[in-house]
Structures are given as C-alpha cells and as structure tokens.
C-alpha cells in the first residue's frame, strides 16, 4: 500500500489556498447528478451534509439515533478554539497551529494542522450567523475563556453546552436542506458494511434498526463521519451507541487504520461506583482552575471522612510535582499522576473489585477565598450534576474524580483531501486520524469536526467528483450482492452462536477491562503481550457463546450491541499491536519502559516520527505496518515540559 499524503508544497500559509485553487470544481448542473453518502450527523457529518446539500449535491445522511440532533457531539461541554485574537492577547493562526502541533507531541501532519488553524475563525463566523448563542460580554461582543492550560483565551463557549449548540446549528442547517430536498436523512439506520467496486468506494450496506431490513445504498463517493472508538474500553465518556463498526468495516476492505493506540484519557470524570456502571460522566476540566487535587499520604486514611484529614497528611501531588502548572497540567499528565497514586494504594472512594480508584478535587480553599456564591456562579451546574450522580454535596465534601477514556486521536488514515486509502472513501471528524497527533488539546475536536465538515470536504470532494468517471452500478451487481451477503451472514452468526451463554455486554465489559488495564493510561510490553494473547481467545469465546435473543427481522438492541462488540474485539487487538510496536512514549501513549528519570514521557524522534498506518491482511493478528514519515519544517520538536 502506498501512502500519499498529497500535501501541497510552498509556504505553509499559502498551501490550502493554493490547493483549493488547484482542485477542480463541479458545475452546478452536474452536482444534482452526484450522490454522496454521509455516515454520521455529528459536527463533521452534519456540517458536511448541510454544506454539500446547499451546493446542490444529492446527499444521503445516515445515523443510528432517531434524530440527527442526537449525535454524540451534543455532549461536548467546554468549548471550541479559534484564533480570532478577540482578546488581543497575542493569539494568531500561527500560534494556534504551533500550540496544536506541540500539544500533539509532534506526531501530527503540519500542513493539516495549519489549515485547521486557518479556518478556525470562519467556523465561529459561520456558527454565529446560524444563531449559535455563544457566551457574550456586557459589551455584546463574544466572550472567550482560556482552556486546558492555553496561555491565550481563544475558547468560545455556550455555557457548559458548547457541543450541543454547535450541533444544533449544524442540525438546523441540515434540516433546512431536507426541506429543500437536497439531503435525505435515514435515522435508525446502521452502516454494517462498505461496497467497494473495482477498488473504489461506491456505497454502503445498512440495517434498518426498526424493521431489520438489510439493504445497499449506492453513490459516487462515501464519507465516514462516524465518530471515535473510545467505547472499546466499555466504560468511557462516550455515548452508549458510539462504535467503530463503520470505520472498522472499511478497514477490513482496505482502508488503513492509523495510530490506533493514541487515545485520550480525561482526568476529571466521576469515578466508577459499582460493577453495574454503564458509562462515565465527564466533569468539565475548568474545575481544575479552582479545585485542588489531593490524596491522603497514608493509605490507611482512604476511608476516613476527607474533612477530618489534617493538612499535613494530605498529598497535593500535582502541585508538588509540577510547581509551574500545578493542578492545570495537560490531560495526559494529570491522568497518569492520578493512576500512579491509586496504584500506590492511596486512592479514595468506594472499593470496586477490591480497589479504590479516585482522588479528591477539593474546593474548600476556593470557597474560603472567593465565597460560596462565586464558586456557585462558576460551577453551579457542574456541582449539581455531581450531586445528582454521586449523591454527595461538593460544597461540603471534596469531589472525587478519576480519569476515563474520552477521545481517540487514531482513526482512518486520510490524505490532505481527507480521503482514505480506498479511493472515493473519505473520513472526517473523530473518525479520521488527521490533526491531533498523539494528544488532543481541549476544545480542538469541535473545531476539527466543523473544519472538516463545513470547509475542507466540500472543496476536496468536488475535486474528486469532478474527475470521477465510475460506471453506474445496479443493486444486483456482484459486489453489491456480496456485501449484502456478508452482512446477512454475520447477523445470522450473531443470533445463532453454537453455545449461547453470555450477553454481549458481559463480553464488552471483559474486553474493556483488559484493554483499559493493558492499553490505557500506562502500557508496557509484558501487559500488552498478555492482552494480545487473550483478545483472540475472547473473540473465539464470543462467536461461540454470545447470547442474542430475538431475530434480525425486528428492532433488536441486543443484536445491535453484539455487532458493535464483535468489531471492538478486533480493534482492541490492533490497538495493542500498535502500542507494542511504538517503542516510545508520545502524548496519550505512555510506554512505561520509555520515560525520563522523573517519570515523564520520552519520545524517540529518530525512530518514531511517523504515522503508523495499519493494513488489514486477512489475519487479524498480523496486520501490515505502513509508515508515513512526518517532517517538521516549522515547529521544531522539543520535549514538552510543564514543570
């Protein structure tokens, strides 16, 4: 497989403009005749569908929820970055580009990141024009906050519901096109396979989640904007339905999967309360601005009322270890530090499976300094949410937090046009690997999803479609029938395992725990090998023993889950293989063997400055590694230091 990034040459600030000019256009009369399939209506897919519809293409948008407005993007709380420099604090396109490349620990493609920074301002203009109610100052102008340790205030937000408001903006633009007849929406439809004809993506196979009908959809090109794969861990901050199926099916047909081991663990989530736990809830990172993180010095104090533990017996471990950034160190660092103190037996909160996994986030000092009303004004809704879930009042007793899977930087490999290694198949948003390298900075996923959907894909798809000369395909084409056949066959196997004994969730929990332990916040060769030995066994047990009630010809949520778990069982192995091969630490990928003397991530730029793009070979345990070398012409790699 050849990886051609198709990055334009020339000065970085001119590349996108030049490229856009070089891309061909599709004349308006021909757009109607081009059919585009978009899987996903989150920020990336919703924005792309709306824009392509406006341009006059014939768009079919698919999503598994009942309405496009419910895509997982709705849950993003904190905000979206843009280099508007409205605060006059020295921000610029170049600074946002620089921060993102550095934040990604020098494992992202410079040209893509620059483009992202370049269109970031247009995103804010577009969303504001749609009526997205961003927070404002008394002057009536837009407000900003600083987020995730950034030195400038470039984050735009809408209370604690930024993702919701941005998604509703895209959703409304999409529904406008539905009304105009350009976009056709297909809710409660799950993509279960891709149709590739003569090496080119030409359609998808879906299951109607209400009737169970399996059918093909044909098009001139296909966009996957199906989100990330963080649910491989079972417990994560993702919505329950988030899955890897769409991208994984494409991977099995030839789309390279890049950097699967780069996952982001968010430090401030509500800890697991019991073995029935179904998902984890994120508490906004902004809490770290006023909360102090600590654990007892003595493990024996773990069960004591924290308020009775004397100051001298508390370990404010982030403040001591990172005096310059203190409680505001980046996500990966804060997460690992929490794991470390819990590994030492100093975790707090209820014991689940014999372990206490939680640290305190204490507001007592801030309440004393600023008064309860100020804290309530800043975090009232978050405190209420915490109280609702944990049943404790954080104004009186410290919150308990613990890291949880939150975002996946890896995804389908794409070139500068967001096209995968299968011609005609594009990937956008969290589903691709493109812009965040080994670690994503806060407030930049929303930016990337909307950049891809509103600004990048509409240009690059036109470039592809203008040259596209594929024949018209009929539903009874051999490849179409083969794809439908594969789907039917798989569903049949899922409902008729030879020895049905365990529920899909029970397999998912076991896989999740294994991948979390061995390929989560800290990884080492021994643990990864252990997981690599176990996952194929578990996969076999699954196909032999999964218990799915009912049939495929009806609404069947157990069957939906089983299909998703089956794909996670394959992806999990690739994640571990990728993590094992990458003999360095970078961003969210922390190999315990590769750390500095004081326990920080140690990159190996000489040997690992590349994107690992894995190719399916037919043997899940032996994928082929392809490398896209990364070059840094503008931002020179240096060790990230937050001391």
């Amino acid at each position: 497989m050849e990886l051609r990034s198709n990055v334009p040459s020339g000065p970085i600030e001119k590349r996108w403009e030049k490229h856009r000019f070089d891309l061909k256009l599709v004349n308006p009369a021909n757009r109607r005749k081009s059919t585009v399939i978009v899987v996903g209506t989150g920020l990336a897919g919703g924005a792309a569908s709306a824009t392509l519809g406006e341009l006059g293409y014939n768009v079919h948008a698919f999503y598994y929820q009942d309405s496009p407005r419910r895509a997982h993007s709705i849950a993003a709380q904190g905000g979206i970055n843009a280099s508007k420099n409205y605060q006059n604090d020295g921000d610029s396109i170049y600074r946002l580009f620089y921060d993102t490349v550095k934040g990604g620990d020098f494992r992202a493609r410079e040209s893509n990141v620059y483009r992202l920074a370049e269109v970031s301002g247009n995103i804010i203009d577009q969303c504001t024009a749609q009526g997205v109610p961003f927070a404002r100052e008394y002057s009536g102008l837009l407000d900003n906050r600083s987020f995730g340790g950034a030195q400038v205030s470039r984050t735009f937000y809408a209370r604690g519901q930024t993702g919701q408001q941005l998604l509703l903006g895209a959703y409304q633009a999409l529904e406008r096109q539905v009304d105009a007849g350009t976009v056709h929406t297909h809710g409660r439809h799950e993509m279960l396979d891709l149709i590739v004809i003569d090496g080119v993506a030409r359609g998808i196979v879906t299951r109607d989640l209400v009737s169970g009908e399996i059918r093909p959809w044909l098009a001139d090109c296909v966009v996957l904007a199906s989100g990330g794969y963080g649910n491989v861990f079972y417990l994560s901050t993702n919505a329950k339905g988030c899955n890897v199926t769409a991208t994984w099916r494409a991977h099995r047909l030839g789309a390279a999967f890049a950097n699967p081991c780069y996952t982001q663990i968010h430090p401030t989530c509500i800890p697991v309360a019991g073995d029935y736990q179904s998902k984890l809830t994120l508490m906004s990172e902004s809490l770290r601005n006023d909360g102090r993180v600590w654990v007892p010095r003595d493990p024996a104090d773990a069960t004591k009322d924290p308020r009775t533990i004397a100051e001298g017996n508390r370990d404010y471990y982030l403040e001591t270890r990172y005096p310059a950034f203190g409680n505001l160190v980046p996500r990966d660092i804060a997460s690992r530090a929490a794991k470390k103190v819990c590994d030492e037996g100093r975790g707090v909160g209820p014991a689940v499976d014999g372990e206490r996994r939680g640290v305190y986030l204490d507001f007592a000092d801030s309440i004393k300094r600023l008064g309860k009303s100020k804290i309530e004004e800043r975090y009232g809704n978050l405190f209420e949410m915490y109280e609702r879930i944990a049943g404790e009042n954080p104004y009186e007793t410290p919150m308990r937090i613990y890291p949880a899977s939150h975002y996946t930087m890896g995804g389908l490999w794409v070139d500068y046009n967001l096209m995968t290694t299968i011609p005609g198949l594009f990937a956008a948003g969290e589903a691709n690997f493109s812009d965040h390298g080994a670690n994503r900075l806060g407030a930049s996923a929303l930016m990337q999803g909307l950049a891809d959907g509103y600004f990048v894909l509409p240009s690059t798809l036109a470039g592809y479609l203008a040259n596209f000369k594929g024949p018209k395909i009929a539903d009874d084409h051999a490849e179409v029938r083969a794809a439908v056949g594969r789907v039917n066959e798989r569903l049949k196997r899922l409902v008729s395992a030879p020895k049905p004994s365990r529920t899909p969730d029970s397999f998912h929990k076991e896989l999740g725990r294994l991948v979390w332990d061995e390929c989560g916040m800290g990884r080492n060769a021994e643990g990864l090998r252990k997981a690599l030995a176990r996952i194929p066994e578990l996969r076999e047990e699954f196909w032999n023993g999964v218990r799915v009630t009912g049939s495929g010809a009806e609404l069947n949520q157990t069957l939906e889950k089983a299909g998703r778990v089956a794909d996670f069982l394959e992806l999990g192995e690739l994640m571990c293989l990728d993590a094992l091969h990458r003999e360095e630490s970078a961003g969210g990928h922390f190999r315990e063997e590769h750390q500095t003397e004081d326990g920080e991530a140690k990159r190996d730029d000489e040997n690992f400055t590349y994107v690992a793009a894995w190719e399916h070979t037919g043997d899940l345990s032996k994928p082929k590694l392809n490398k896209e070398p990364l070059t840094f012409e503008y931002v020179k790699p240096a060790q990230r230091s937050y001391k």
Partner: protein
Amino acid sequence: MSKKLNLTLHVWRQKGPTAAGDFVKYPASGIDDHMSFLEMLDVVNEGLIEKGEDPIAFDHDCREGICGSCGVMINGMAHGPRKATTACQLHMRVFHDGDEIWIEPWRAAAFPIIKDLIVDRGSLDRIVQSGGYVSVRTGAARDANNIAIPKDDADLAMDAAQCIGCGACVAACPNASASLFTSAKIGHLALLPQGGPEREDRVRRMVLQHDAELFGSCTQHGECEAACPKQISINFIARMNADFIKTAVTANADLKQREGQ
C-alpha cells in the same frame, strides 16, 4: 454507603406499532441505590437475556441528560419524580425499598409507539424542517463580532436554545401539545438579530407544521414547564403566540401594501 433496594416494576411491553401492549410485572431485586434508572433497567435486561427472554427496548445514548434520546413515564411523571432531571440522570436513591414503579412510553398521537418504551419522534424534526433555522450558506458569514448582541438577549436566547428535544413536554401535556418545544426554537431565533429577517415566516410555518403533526393546542396547564428537564419557561409560548398573532396582522398589512403598489 450504598443501600440495596427490592422493587417491583410494571413495564409497558408492546411488540410493534400495531401490536397490542400491556404492562408486564418484573421483580428488580438487589438494586444498588447509586445506580441510575437506566442502569437499573440494564440489570433487569441482562437477567432477561440470560433467561432467553426479549429485553425491554428503550431509547438512550448519552446518559448525561443532553442528547434527548431517553424519556419514559415513571409513575405517571415524564422522566420521573426529580425536577430538571432526565430519566438517564435519575438515580435510584429517589426510590424506597419495596416500591412499585410503573414505566410507560410517551403517549401522544404524534409519537407512535415503535416497540416497548420507544416512540417515533420524527414529528419534532419535521417542525424544525419547516423553519427552525437561519438561512445562511456556509462561507457567507461576516465576522462574528460585527454583530453585537446585548448579553441579556443572548442569555435568554440560550435559555430557550437548551431544549434537548426529548418530547417530555408533549408527554406531560394533557393536550399532547408540542408548544414548548416549538416555541423554544422560535424564541431562541427571534431573540437574536440573525433570526430577524425570517422571523415572520418562521413562526407561521412552524406553528402550522406543529398543528399538522397532530399535536394538540396549548391551553396553559403548565405541565410542560414542570416536566422539562431543562426547565424551559412557558413564557416562550406566550412570545410565540404574540409573534404568531402579530404576523397575521403585519403579513396582511404587507400584502395590502404590495397590492396597493
């Protein structure tokens, strides 16, 4: 410390849109009071699957109270007894050992039942299609700070924009009206200058679509506001009605003016 609860559930089971439905009784024992309501249903469902029985179908996704997927009547209350809380954010501590819990789908002509607790809320999307947007093409926007909007207006617009589209307002309303949902979108956009040019058309089209979907009319019971997990105020319904009436007058005036020319 967590407590264990032993409960009896009465759950609406219905195979499909045209099948007859009924309540079926299930014991739910050893329920940890830290569980969320949906986690309690997960536990019951795992037990059903293990016995080879069809689990209870219910919509859910984010489980954080923001996607609007979940929503059931719990003891006759939309999303259950806790104020400003979706079913997924409701925790079992609000119940007591020995409680009987009745769980039903949203009931409304505009929300046909698909299966068990799942209903079809496509009617809400169609209301948005009829005008719940600002018509601005991608790339056609001017600099965001060219429009200054008084903070109070922006904040009030945000109050309305918070709607999660769950349908609780409809389920709680004795007339099964979606006025709160419709007025929240109309109110959000009417409060902002960006929504100005299409304001008249929007209110007219959306209200007509609302009625065409078989939602009932608002007779100001206020149940919707009480049930709304985002506490959206019924003042938005008053604003919508005022706009609608005004449009009837101004639209006629426009027409007369145009005819006179």
